[in-house]
């Protein structure tokens, strides 16, 4: 149900914006996660898994050494195979669980993201806008096994000395790693099978309303013609500059606006000037919106 819609303003991540229609019919804007952040998340997860596996193995080895020492001192020597065998079983189960349970546990959690994905600010979601189910998460993670680890198995089963094995393994790896680059939504094989996708999960604070100072009805009254030159894109850029509140940027923007509308701005404090212009421009544009007239940016006409 994901469709691309025409968005009135210019966007920072053009091409990755999607609108999902939820079951209640709310149009929900989503941004497909950038491929770079997905790779970053994957590398983070893998490094974490390998570190845990490495530390766990060392721990078990130390334990085995300790057990062997104890047996050497007190035992009859017959216990050694049983004890070591038990540790090997523990290790095999540990590494198996680590590989499968890590992804399942975190992606089934309320955040829908592994630790790496959380860091990258992305999460998984159902592509049809419905509920994300346990089956979907299982399906996409089973597929990860062949996408990532299959070449390693292939090479080790044929033999590291064989060049065809390396060629086939590399081709396999490249095919699955590049798959997300060949579809619009950056789906890997597991996402296709499971009906999921990876999207950005932004968390934002509610910022204060734009300060509306006494200047609205004060010294700066702009005429209709002076306000008509800019559109929504410029308004929102101005909003960002006012929120960032950097003196140098405000001075240059004030100068640019002054030059454009033909008003001398020398000696006037930039902040009240820009606040007044912002408020009056926004009032004008929002009134236009209610009348069904929108002006996307300074290049477009009265309505678009």
């Amino acid at each position, binding site marked *: 149900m994901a469709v691309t819609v025409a968005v009135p303003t210019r966007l920072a991540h053009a091409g990755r914006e999607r609108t999902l229609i939820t079951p209640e019919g709310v149009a929900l804007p989503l941004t497909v996660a950038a491929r770079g952040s997905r790779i970053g998340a994957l590398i983070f997860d893998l490094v974490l898994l390998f570190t845990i596996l490495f530390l766990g193995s060392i721990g078990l080895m130390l334990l085995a050494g300790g057990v062997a020492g104890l047996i050497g001192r007190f035992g009859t020597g017959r216990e050694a*195979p049983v004890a070591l*065998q038990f540790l090997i079983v523990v290790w095999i189960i540990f590494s198996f669980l680590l590989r499968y349970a890590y992804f399942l546990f975190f992606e*089934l959690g309320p955040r*829908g993201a592994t630790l790496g994905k959380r860091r990258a600010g992305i999460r998984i979601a159902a*592509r049809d806008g419905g509920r994300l189910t346990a*089956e979907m998460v*299982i399906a996409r993670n089973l597929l990860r096994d062949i996408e990532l680890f299959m070449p390693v198995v292939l090479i080790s089963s044929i033999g590291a000395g064989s060049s065809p094995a390396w060629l086939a393994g590399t081709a396999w790896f490249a095919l699955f790693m590049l798959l997300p680059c060949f579809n619009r939504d950056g789906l890997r094989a597991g996402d296709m099978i499971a*009906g999921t996708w990876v999207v950005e999960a932004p968390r934002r604070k509610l910022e204060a309303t734009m300060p509306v100072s006494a200047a609205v009805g004060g010294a700066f009254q702009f005429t209709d013609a002076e306000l008509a030159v800019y559109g929504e894109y410029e308004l929102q850029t101005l909003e960002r500059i006012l929120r960032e509140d950097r003196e140098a940027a405000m001075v240059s923007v004030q100068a640019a606006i002054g030059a454009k509308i033909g008003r001398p701005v020398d000696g006037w404090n930039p902040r009240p000037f820009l606040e007044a212009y912002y408020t009056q421009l926004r009032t004008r544009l929002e009134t236009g919106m209610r009348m069904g007239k929108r002006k996307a940016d300074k290049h477009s006409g009265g309505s678009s």
Partner: protein
Amino acid sequence: MTTAFASETISAALLRSDRFRIEREADWQRLEAIVTAAEKGRLRRISDEDLLALPQLYRTVASSLSIARAISLDAATLRYLEALVQRAWFVVYGPRSSLIEWLRGFLGGGWSRSVRGLGQDLLTSLLVMIAGALVGWLLVAHDPEWYRALVPGGMGDTRVPGASPAVLRETIFGHSGQDGLGAFAAFLFSNNARVSLLAFSLGFAFGIPTLLLLVQNTAIVGAMLWLYHGAGLTVDFAAWLSVHGTTELFAIFLSGAAGLHIGRSMAFPGTRSVLTAAAEAGRRSAQVMAGVVLMLIVAALLEGFARQLVDNTLGRLAIGGFMLAFWLAYFFAFGRAGDRVADRGAGEARTWQ
């Protein structure tokens, strides 16, 4: 009196879209607090009142968003609302079941239902496996050299063509005192798990590699059956194999069917798009595969322990036969009443889509 006057002056000074925001801000903040707690997994700390209000608040904020889009040009507020509605949507439509709850539903009928849902692919998988065993037998019967090509064997493996019946008998009896069974079982499990996951995952290359993998694996069984048949040990070998084989081959059979299910829905998606068809089949198959992993654990335990401890043909046949009967009953007789309920549920869900 003074406060009313003050708020009046403020509202007079504000933009209409800011007034809209200030009137609704409290609801937004409340939803944000609930959603943040839910994201941190602290559902227990949310009061019942808040939890009941969540769906209503979600809809309220979603409608605030669509109104704000129509009347407001405050980019910060719009972005905040978009992010908030998205997070609330993830909470309301996130995975509802925890791993434990899912497991209960899964073992209590969900698994058998998805196995039955594979339909004709079960038949295909079974036929391909029988054909594979036949091919293995016929190839080796035609030319024993095929045996070495089909069966991967170590240097010390005595199970080769030309081995005497006594040697072959030794390979299937008399290991009850052996050590190293636990580690062996764990190794077998992780190896078998890989083969079945492969059979499943390769399904999305339209199922063809799955077919090849099934044939290759059952051809080994066919070739070994021929070998023991030549030594007059057919029943003993079948019994030896059946202890874990009825479970293990059943698991491979299911994973093959799951792989073929995906392959077939992608090759013949019908009126759906290829991706939708693949996703539908993928979800059903994933249920089956989660169960296959469980079956392989059972098979590895049977192979590592039961087979070595029970050292006679009749006992082995009894265990293998019981396991086969158990799986058949579980998959094809258990939870049939649930099918109708599930079908009706799906039908009702479709009505509202």
